[in-house]
């Protein structure tokens, strides 16, 4: 079971990486407001407009 000498440190390192990432995301304010982001996805933005222009160029096909 000597493989465990490698696996345990790697798994702990991986876990530590994720915990660090989680703490960073909280410090970045990503968990502060979980209500409002769900409404943002419906915003009309430039991407839609570009799509529309492309369709027009193709002659509405």
């Amino acid at each position, binding site marked *: 079971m000597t493989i465990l000498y490698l696996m345990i440190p790697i798994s*702990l390192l991986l876990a530590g990486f994720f*915990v660090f990432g989680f703490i960073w995301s909280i410090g970045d304010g990503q968990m502060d*407001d979980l209500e409002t982001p769900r*409404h943002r996805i419906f915003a009309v933005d430039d991407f839609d407009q570009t799509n529309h222009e492309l369709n027009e160029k193709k002659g509405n096909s």
Partner: protein
Amino acid sequence: MAFSDFSFLDSDSVGPSYTTKGRLRGLRFFVEGMRCGQCVRKLENLPATTPGVLSSRANLTQKTVEIEFDSKVIQPSKVAESIETLGFVPIPVTTDIELSTLSQKTQRQTWIRLGVAGACAANIMTFSFSTYFGASGDWATAFGWLSFALYLPVVTYVAWPFYQGAYRSLKQRSLSIDLPMAVASLAGFVFSTIQLIRGQSDYYFDSLSGFLFLILVSRAIQQRLQTQFLSKNEFAQGLELKRLRKLVSSGWHWVKAEEIKAGQGFVVLQGDTLAAEGLLESDSALFSLAWLTGESNSRRFLKGATVPAGSVLLSPKAIFLLNKPIQDTQFGKILETVHDIELNKSSLSNMSDRWSQVLLGVVFAAALIFLGIYWSVSPQEAIRRSLALIILACPCAMAFGTPLALASALKRARRHGLVIKDLSVLDRLLSIETVAFDKTGTLTDSNLTLVAVPSIAPVYLKIILALENESHHPIAFAFRKAFSHLESHPPVTGLRESPGVGVSGYIYGRFYELKHLNTRTKEIACGLFEEGILLAKFEFSAQLREDALASIDKIRSYGLKTHLLSGDTEGSVFPVAEQLGFHPTEVHASLSPCDKASWVNKRQNTMMIGDGINDGLALASASVGVAASGSIEAALKSSKVYLAKPSLNGLVELFELAKHTKRHVRHNLLLSLGYNLSGGVLALMGHIHPFTAALLMPASSGLIIFLSWLRDEK
């Protein structure tokens, strides 16, 4: 479009307390009228529509928006106006005010602790699983020490708030939920470490960390519920009273209210609330003293008169000399009292706290007694079983069950159009003995009806319609309803509407006015004047709300006493009281807002229903204050509940909700009690391993959540 006056945001003395500095300047607003996703999108689209606005971040839960802008391109006041253009009412917020009920720091810390606890618990469990399946020898010991190492951040950082809470509760000589968690976490740690050092396999780092993680989950849920459902609106009304327009030779400029000394001049514009008591310098001006007297009629003051703080200016402009700063005035004292009352009321303990203290006391006593008795048989077994007991008997019903019941109560309340500000309301509703009703706007509709048409020529009725054509005043609606059969009306030139006074204009070359008349008996009257001569008087009465009688009778059937409190004269109050079945001793007329408040104060366990703005003091003094009218933000400043639907049936639903919730909480508590008793006995008899205990605990919580969900669906 006329904008509200945001010029104070640009001023040098007042502006800086609103704008944050950084790479860019920032402004925060509380946005009245933000209710849905589209509002969020409109507000966040500001950078695209308004040059100079660089970023806009809305928060639907707090109803706020934070904007960053380039001060070289756009002024702060224009930023505010751009929000107003979208159709909202922006209220600028000073930088020192915390926007949500729970500080951002506390919330973030809970999340971080949750993450650390989860990561550690999961990894510890990974290592200990092998030992449960029979691993032994060197690797088992290694896993044991790894578990110990991973438990260190848990016992120190994650459990820290529980130690703090436990210490605090012991100092106050009360038992709180933090105690068993602190004890279990520490005692379990010490015991498990000793066992590990001795080479025994009897350690519980997995159970302990798992159990702490689950408790943190419930705490995080509780905090989310708090921020979602409880609103913090106190700042909305108060900020405008901190600034004044100081009179200077070139006109006026904004200063903080405390910077104006007695005898110095200040200017007030239409719609402003007086933020100080002033001596009127202008020849005459019209004010509304609704905040102080509850009357909606306007009062005219002449030069040299002292105008009280809290009056609202109805005339376009008035100049004053400062007499007394706001803290020294009656109005300022009212505001302070409302604030103090709010602080006191929030320290009431509620039902489940009492229950949980009892349960905890019993559990600790049982654990200690058992420890003492069983120590002589086998100290390790004694500790193991007590630990199992404490982990198992952790009052999860209090942690999960009561907030769940309250959250489902809030959901139900929302469905019925009840906006509840404070969860303690539901508990206090059950001990209410008296219910006091305000009359105007609460028992009566805000719509008016014309009582009788005096005998004048129909052409004058058409003139009235012409004058009231563009008015949104309740009187105008009443006229239009009464004279709807008249088809055409003559054209008007020079039409003017003066708020609080009336309408006027020129028809066929003659000057006509429809003005308010002050009367003794009926509530509202106005007169039609031609060239200054009174032609006819019109009287209006407010209609009773349709379900008023039914709702009040239902409330009486609960065994509650009902009273009517009104600022109007006896003549207009008694007819309404009779119709609604009030006994003469239950009717109190001609009360000022202060009188109403002292009446409410003298009686314990009183519920008051009134107008959120005019009856503010009485509503705040009552055990439960319910605002039936007025703007929601102003109402929630003084009262705990707001009826969004214009029906008094909301009150009946409120009582039903309180009863239902109490039953719900009681069921949850009984369930947890049953589980705790049976589980506790089994644990002390040695049938439950601490690990099993740690598993049973979330299972029982899951059961409670499931049952609550079933109840919701009914």
